[in-house]
């Protein structure tokens, strides 16, 4: 059931704000974490001075993301002479917009009952609860793959239309890399779909709320640890970040497919990349880390093993679930940045061989084992 219009508008505003904030914050996290990993002090120069005082708010360089954004907006919008004007103009948008759209089907919290949150609304909403998800579609996971397929077209359009050999090479690399890893990413998920029996993301998260074997939370990563590893690897490759950043490898191709873009047009590519980090983290959280679920937290409150129960008010449960989701996403973003600053770049032939001769067979083996296990367990149950 979809939420009513006012609630949906609130969800959309929340999602947009969240993604844009992540896009900005992650540029800072990337630099700060790189500095910490390299034992440097790192980004600490940008500050906001409170007017008419000498009080400077540095906040560990948190305003570097803001400074970056302003720089992108105010730089000269250099007009290259492209090979194809339409495709050149479309490129950044076709890359950026689908990334944002993916979040529409990801549940970012449990269910919320507006009537119970605000007594004022009890008249119009009563006790009805709505899932915290912009579009609850039964084909949710397919929507994710449908939209992430669109970004490939954007990168290829940008590189092809740029009238630049480096850009064209970058676009060719991007096309073949993204197509290869999208296949792997899809195959790793099939096992999970078999276990959950649905592609509705909200239902998938709800199935992860219990526990397995009494102790482990019933998260996807406990059922499919191997698929989780493969999925995260393929997702980082989809996002074209080190060690998979061949399409934009600066030591080989300047900036790859977006060499000919400047100012905010280039900023859109960067922004899309950073938002995609958050999207990947949100997707991984939803599929493998139980989404908004905390162990033993139900809609009524904590129910600990052994029968102890702590009832929590509805508002606290809603906020806890949203914060749990955000915390998981943030940790996973940080993990992706950790990977980015740890591994060296692949060579091009290694990259494709890794996809087709290593990851794809492994994903198939994982799927085969899952099919056998599910069939055997169903046979036991029947």
């Amino acid at each position, binding site marked *: 059931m979809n939420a009513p219009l006012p609630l949906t508008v609130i969800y959309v505003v929340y999602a947009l704000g969240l993604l844009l904030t992540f896009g900005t914050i992650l540029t800072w996290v990337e630099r700060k974490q790189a500095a910490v990993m390299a034992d440097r002090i790192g980004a600490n120069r940008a500050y906001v001075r409170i007017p008419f005082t000498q009080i400077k708010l540095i906040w560990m360089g948190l305003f570097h993301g803001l400074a970056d954004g302003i720089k992108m907006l105010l730089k000269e919008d250099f007009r290259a002479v492209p090979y194809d004007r339409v495709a050149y103009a479309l490129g950044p948008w076709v890359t950026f917009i689908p990334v944002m759209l993916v979040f529409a089907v990801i549940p970012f919290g449990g269910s919320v009952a507006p009537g119970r949150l605000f007594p004022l609304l009890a008249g119009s909403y009563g006790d009805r609860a709505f899932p915290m998800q912009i579009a609850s579609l039964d084909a949710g996971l397919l929507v994710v793959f*449908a939209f992430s397929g669109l970004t490939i077209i954007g990168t290829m359009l940008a590189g092809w239309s740029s009238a630049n050999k480096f850009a064209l090479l970058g676009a060719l690399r991007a096309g073949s890399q993204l197509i290869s890893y999208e296949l792997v990413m899809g195959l790793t998920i099939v096992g999970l779909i078999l276990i959950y029996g649905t592609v509705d993301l909200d239902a998938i998260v709800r199935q992860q709320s219990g526990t397995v074997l009494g102790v482990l939370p019933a998260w996807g990563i406990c059922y499919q640890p191997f698929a989780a590893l493969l999925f995260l690897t393929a997702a980082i490759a989809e996002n074209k970040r080190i060690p998979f950043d061949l399409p934009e490898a600066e030591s080989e191709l300047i900036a790859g497919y977006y060499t000919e873009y400047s100012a905010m047009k280039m900023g859109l590519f960067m922004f899309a990349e950073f938002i995609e980090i958050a999207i990947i983290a949100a997707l991984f959280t939803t599929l493998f880390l139980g989404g908004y679920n905390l162990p033993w937290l139900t809609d009524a409150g904590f129910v600990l093993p052994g029968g102890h129960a702590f009832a929590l008010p509805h508002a606290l449960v809603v906020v806890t679930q949203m914060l749990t989701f955000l915390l998981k996403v943030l940790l996973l973003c940080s993990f992706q940045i950790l990977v980015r600053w740890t591994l060296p770049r692949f060579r091009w032939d290694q990259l494709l061989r890794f996809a087709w001769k290593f990851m794809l067979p492994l994903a198939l083996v994982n799927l085969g084992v899952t099919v056998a296990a599910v069939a055997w367990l169903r046979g036991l149950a029947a």
Partner: protein
Amino acid sequence: MTETVLLYLFSAAALAGAVVMLIARHPMRVALGLISTMLALACLYALLGVHVIAVFQVLIYVGAVMVFMVFVIMLLDTRDPSFVARYSRLLLPGALTAAVLAATLAALLARHHGGRLRPPGGADFHLQPFSVAFLRDYWLHFELTSVLLVVVVVAAIAVIRGRGGRDG
């Protein structure tokens, strides 16, 4: 009200994309026209309440087929001027066929006018019933379509080979 406006808007977008596809010269522009038509069609399906079809439209046609087309156009684009001529020799037969098709569709539409134009959305088109029906009742149709696709590929190769014997 909103739905009707959106319906006409996306129909217009689909038509505009199709027109661009027909009159554009460069293969990449043609591909872009086709992509926008397919996206607009997906929006129409979603508006008519058949989300699953809309998702598959984007997933298969745009996400897979068109991605490959754009990739191939990019790969083979040697700035070759063969597409400068806007119309091929098959313009007249093509136009005739299009006219016949349009007339047939118009006649069919006129006969069923006032009848049920909305497709049966709702429960039949949720993912689970749809997949079950697809794999249980319509698998033969699906396989026949793939045979048809092979025929089309063979025909395309024949057309290319037949034109002056210029092997790729």
